[in-house]
């Protein structure tokens, strides 16, 4: 892999990287100052984001500048407006936003303030998953420092731009990482996603215009504002610009969160960045971006890890959280866990998802424990097709169906053998326990 410029994780390597002092010394809050003092008009900031071709980093990859431009014209729609930052990071395999929040919270805050300026929001809420206690503490401490330094609240840096940023805690539900589930949860309700339309820009928090963005997405904003959108668009591949935080976990020697440019292949990431597959083994299968995308065969690691290239392998970038599965691992066992996860996390509104996620989990459980039935694989495919695409309020149903279909497509023989032999021929440790109640 050629050397490449970095910026996302640079400050996290500094001592006391989470403090305002370190942040300022490293050039922090200069982008905010540029925006407020030059000044840039909000529309200019949005334009810069559009030029940058930054795509959302929360899994959906929606172009950020375009999303910001969906907010209504405040002259025509004077309702209060919000930015909600999705720090609910719960996609299996994903642990990158945590690094930013724990070690560089001011970067997130500066990004939030600039984003609020651009979309003309009076307040931002950072919705952090309840389990990320250190992230919450670090971000709250950073907010306190920022307020004391006149960088937050009324008349920031002495201008007439006022903005509040508040922390908010989730409580353990993956579905609250879905943008409308997040908003329901933030309002103090069950995290039930809302049907769209209406979209958050028209009907968001408390029915007001709202933009929801991932932590890493917002984190990019000060860099894009400081260096210009064209700089960002000059890095990466067609359709996937800039650097991204790649998580890699599972059967590799050096699991971790690494900053990489778009354009590197999955094989380079595994072998050169993550120290190769562990124990001298081969990769049997891998998830490119969390568990909600299709599995890819180990033989297909030579694909570039970006949005468009992964589509050619029938998968998607998701959260860029690679999970590497070695050739001593049972796919039935992997899918038992993945299916159980969606069963646990479905909010239960939609008939297909509520019943389907449980059904998929039950079938994979039977296959993995030697109780498969001859029609199970056909049923899995049929159920997954009934659960997707676009048949439900939100995409969790799709997220359960997609890996299921890929596992049956790519590892049909292995799963069929489990059924035929009424056992999983690949050993793995088991503890039997029923679900939580």
């Amino acid at each position, binding site marked *: 892999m050629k050397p490449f410029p970095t910026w996302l994780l640079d400050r996290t390597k500094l001592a006391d990287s989470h403090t305002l002092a370190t942040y300022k010394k490293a050039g922090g809050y200069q982008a905010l100052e540029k925006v407020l003092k030059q000044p840039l008009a909000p529309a200019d900031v949005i334009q810069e984001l559009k030029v940058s071709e930054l795509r959302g980093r929360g899994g959906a990859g929606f172009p950020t500048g375009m999303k910001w431009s969906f907010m209504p014209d405040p002259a025509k729609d004077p309702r209060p407006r919000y930015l909600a930052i999705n720090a609910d990071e719960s996609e299996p395999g994903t642990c990158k936003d945590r690094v930013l929040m724990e070690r560089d919270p001011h970067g997130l805050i500066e990004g939030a303030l600039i984003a609020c300026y651009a979309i003309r929001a009076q307040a931002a809420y950072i919705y952090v998953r309840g389990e990320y206690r250190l992230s919450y503490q670090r971000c709250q401490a950073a907010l306190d420092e920022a307020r004391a330094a006149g960088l937050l609240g009324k008349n920031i840096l002495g201008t007439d731009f006022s903005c509040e940023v508040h922390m908010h805690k989730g409580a353990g539900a993956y579905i609250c990482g879905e943008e409308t589930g997040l908003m329901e949860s933030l309002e103090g309700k069950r995290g039930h996603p809302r049907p769209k339309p209406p979209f958050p820009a028209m009907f968001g928090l408390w029915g007001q215009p709202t933009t929801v963005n991932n932590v890493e997405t917002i984190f990019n904003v000060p860099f894009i504002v400081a260096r210009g959108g064209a700089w960002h668009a000059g890095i990466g591949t067609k359709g996937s610009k800039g650097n991204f935080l790649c998580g890699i976990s599972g059967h590799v020697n050096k699991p971790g969160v690494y900053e990489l440019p778009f354009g590197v292949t999955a094989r380079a990431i595994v072998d050169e960045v993550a120290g190769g597959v562990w124990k001298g083994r081969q990769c049997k299968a891998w998830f490119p971006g969390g568990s909600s995308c299709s599995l890819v065969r180990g033989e297909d690691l030579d694909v570039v890890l970006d949005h468009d290239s992964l589509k050619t392998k029938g998968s998607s970038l998701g959260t860029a959280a690679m999970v590497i599965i070695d050739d001593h691992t049972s796919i039935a066992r992997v899918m038992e866990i993945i299916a159980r996860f969606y069963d646990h996390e479905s909010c*239960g509104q939609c008939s297909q998802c509520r019943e389907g*996620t449980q059904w998929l989990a039950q079938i994979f459980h039977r296959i993995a424990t030697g109780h498969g039935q001859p029609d199970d694989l056909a049923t899995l495919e049929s159920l997954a097709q009934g659960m997707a695409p*676009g048949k439900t*309020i939100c995409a969790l149903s799709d997220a359960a169906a997609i890996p299921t279909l890929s596992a049956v497509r790519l590892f049909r023989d292995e799963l069929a053998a489990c059924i035929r032999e009424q056992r999983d021929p690949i050993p793995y440790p088991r503890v039997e326990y029923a679900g939580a109640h």
Partner: protein
Amino acid sequence: MVKITVNGRQVEADPKQPLIAACHGSGVEVPNYCYHPGLTPVGSCRICQVEVQQGTAPGRVMVACRTYPAEGMVVNTESAKAHDTRRECLEFLLKNHPLDCPICDKAGECDLQDYTYDEGQAAGRTHEPRRELEKRHSLGDVIVLDQERCILCSRCVRFFEEVPKKAQLTIADLGSRSVVATFGDRPLTGNYQGNIADLCPVGALTLKKFRFQARVWNLVKQASTCPECSRGCSIQVEVLRGGEVKRFRPRENRAVNGWWMCDTGRFAFAHVNAPNRLAHALVRGDAGLVPVPIEEGQAALRALLAERRGALFVLSPFCTVEEGRALQALAQRHGATAVFVSPGPNGLKDDLLHTGDPAPNRRGLSELGLAAATSAELATRMGAAPLVVLAGERVAELVGRERLAALPTGVALAVLDCEVPTARACVVALGVPTWVERSGTYVNVDGQRGPLSAVKPAPAGVRALLRHVADLEQAPLGARS
């Protein structure tokens, strides 16, 4: 209004109402569970999926309850894609649904049965054990919850939040562990609980008073009007094989009661199923009141009316407009005064439907020019009259049985009612039908006219009040004048 096409026919649709309302309004059935016109749409059950095509975009399957009509929209509720999507949805719902039909009250009027019959698949594929939850969970005096049957449409939860506006139910837990629940073991309260049994598309919420009482296909049903207060909710009366009234249910009437009725009216079986009916004519002889042929009873009353001018007619507020008019005329012809007894407020008035006025046709009778008289006022007036004619169901109860017992000798009392009279002053009694045994009109508190329709025959010795009045007007054939 916008012009859309539904299954090839052009339809005018209100763009502010969900597409499903436009379909239903134009006679096109679209299955639905979570959608209900009286509740906020949520789009969660996914059964109302239809194929929608707009402009040049290809047709997409969308839920009709959260899609709003737009000019030029083309809707196909019967396309193969729409059928397939709904069939899949039904399979998901039936995976955990218990095979309770043989013992479930809802059978015969169950939306899960009906939609599955229409477009579900004949055989299920699940090998998995069905979930085990509470099956006979009492939610208080009115409702039993069977959590296993529940398809989690959330209508019941939304009903309490949006109609009586006080949450009493929630969906607890999430995903495949979701259940409908109250807080702890608190029972449901309030006078509107029965509505959730109507709303429930399946047999998860059933009425304790209807549980195992009848198979719905054995019930004869008729549209009518509830008489238990002056709201006059539009209802349906359901009778088992010409015998007991087994159920009252609300009918939709957006001008009166929306889709709801209160539990007071819903469970008002006592009068219509009362065993102690005045089912023949009675005339007082030496041994007391003795049954006689109806014509003889009528003759006795005819004679009384002829002899005793200045009689007082006391009508029941349960008299229909038609009965009121006929009795008013009869009174006039015999130089009698006619009033109707006016019960006081019963304390059940609420912000929703119940008016607290137990007189169903107060306005209808008042508009005829009949004056209202309280039971206390009547006590004096009755004592001064030579003849008191009480007419209409529940009249004796509303005037007050003690007041009637205290009538001085000299007052002759004639009673046309449903219950057997006990007052000594009563010299003739004629049986009349209850409100489920006769037809007529009520006028409610707001001036809305509500029909009564007979749904079961009255007992043999009973004759309609209008018929009694007509008979009293003329001597029967063959009678000596």
